[in-house]
């Protein structure tokens, strides 16, 4: 495959994780500006594990995602008592704190006569595990999409399971959920922890693909973008955020010809789209309609 295409597709895959993590919280009715924090925590955590402690890739990725999930849980417990915008701003404040701490955070060890490790605002170089083990860019892309497929299967199971219904119910009306005898806050904390793990998988993959992470990548722009993807693509299905990422990265890459004006066109398009479809392209009603058509088509085949 064309290396350029591989790099674009890998990017789409990695960003999809953080978009899915923001989407999961959107299902429960919470707007998070801060999912980039867990992306960052896992990028650093898994990078430190493989590059500095000599762990294998999978152990490092697991460790990073676990760290991200733990951090998300710890943040969710005090902040999810807050409603609406207060929660959004609290996640924003936390994510910026994480970024600014990484701007200061220095932890280096000497490996083969060279200093390896995060070095404050200079970033964290040489997370070389993938290159040292001779994994090609194409193979790594398959790893990314394999994991993405697993997460998507998880989402589809979730949508059919009771838990998914509870999440959507909390998103519709938390008070009604409480009246059913369900602890809405506990479910939200669970959703936040799962969202943290998903963002964390993306972060670990990201650090190993680029081999270099620096704090300023994980700024609030990444967080707001990942939130926007779900809303552009649609809140009806987990494919919505993927569609959003595909439209943004795919579309922007394909019309490089008008580079310099891309955001002017794209920003306007998104604004108009949200006027017509405030819950995105694949919103709940559309997904429902598509499913019905699909079932009818299956029946017609019999």
């Amino acid at each position, binding site marked *: 495959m064309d290396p350029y295409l591989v790099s674009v597709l890998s990017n789409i895959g990695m960003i999809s994780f953080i978009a899915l993590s923001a989407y999961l919280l959107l299902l429960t009715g919470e707007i998070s500006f801060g999912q980039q924090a867990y992306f960052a925590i896992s990028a650093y955590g898994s990078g430190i594990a493989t590059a500095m402690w000599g762990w294998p890739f999978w152990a490092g990725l697991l460790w990073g995602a676990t760290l991200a999930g733990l951090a998300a849980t710890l943040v969710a417990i005090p902040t999810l008592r807050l409603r609406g915008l207060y929660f959004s701003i609290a996640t924003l404040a936390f994510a910026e*704190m994480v970024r600014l701490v990484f701007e200061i955070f220095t932890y280096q060890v000497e490996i083969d006569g060279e200093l390896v490790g995060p070095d404050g605002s200079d970033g964290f170089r040489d997370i070389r595990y993938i290159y040292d083990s001779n994994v090609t860019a194409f193979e790594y892309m398959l790893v990314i999409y394999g994991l993405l497929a697993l997460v998507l299967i998880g989402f589809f199971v979730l949508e059919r399971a009771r838990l998914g219904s509870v999440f959507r119910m909390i998103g519709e009306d938390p008070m009604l959920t409480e009246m059913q005898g369900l602890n809405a806050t506990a479910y939200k904390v669970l959703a936040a922890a799962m969202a943290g793990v998903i963002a964390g998988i993306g972060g670990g993959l990201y650090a190993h693909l680029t081999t270099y992470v620096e704090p300023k990548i994980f700024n609030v722009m990444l967080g707001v973008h990942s939130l*926007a993807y779900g*809303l552009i693509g649609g809140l009806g299905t987990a494919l919505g955020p993927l569609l959003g990422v595909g439209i943004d990265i795919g579309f922007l890459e394909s019309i490089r010809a008008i580079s310099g004006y891309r955001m002017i066109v794209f920003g306007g398009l998104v604004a108009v789209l*949200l006027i017509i479809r405030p819950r995105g392209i694949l919103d709940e009603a559309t997904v429902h309609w598509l499913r019905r058509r699909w079932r009818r088509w299956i029946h017609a085949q019999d």
Partner: protein
Amino acid sequence: MVDFIQNCLDGVMVGSSYALLAIGFTLIFGVMRRLNLSYGPSIMLGAFVGTLVYLEFQMGGFAVAVATVIGAVLAGIYVERLCFWAIRQGAAVASMVSSFAIWMQLEEIVTVFFPERTYPFPPLADRTAIEIGPFFLKLENLIMFACAAGLTVLLQVLLYRTRFGLALRAVSENPRAARFMGINIGRVTFWAFALASALGGVAAYLIIGTDAQITPLFGLWATFKGLIAMMLGGMGSIPGAILGGLLLGVVEAQSTWYLGTEYRDLAAYALLFLFLVFRPGGLMGQVAAERERAALRRV
């Protein structure tokens, strides 16, 4: 001790500009209950209109200020029509994401026309420092503080002594009741937006005038400083926005002095996080927050 007081003075001076930004934010939020992320970028666009007037026509301070305000108001109206008026009432998240998309758009428009990193802006005053006992005050900061105080008084008169002010307060208190009283919500929202953008334009002129240079990053900066100051003070409260702005300014000045520049933003965000967790209503909004919580408990 002298250092501490000097920092407080500096903080209050800088904080007065944050307060102006926060007032604009809080006006829009109070009326709409929706967040306008594009607030900073739209006043940034206004400031670049000011720069254009300054560079192309060599006009002085007053003309630049007028151009900045006009530009900011026009950009603000564009945002209001596209992201708030056109999207139905319930879809608050869609409005917010839409305002973010327009943020990207405005920033790109500016960078297309102004490709350099920074552009000159007419300085507010020559760099003279005024000495009062052991303390120093910069002239431009004093001007900024005086303008902010003056505007706050004007705004207070507008909100509490005019029919428009009454309508605006009615809409922010209870939109449905306001509609039953015959208030045209769409029109009030429109003018509140224009007013907030005009205030933002003045704030931008004052802040950028102190630096005597402007960058497209000002949009991001203004949105976040205004947002933090508003949240510290309490959403929807004008006295809160002022106190929040001043508090933010003082905390930044103190943490820069005692901890170093790299800790300045960290301290500001940590303060915001702690405020949200322990006192989500902010300095002044606590009463409203408590009332809301009590109502929820009763249900």
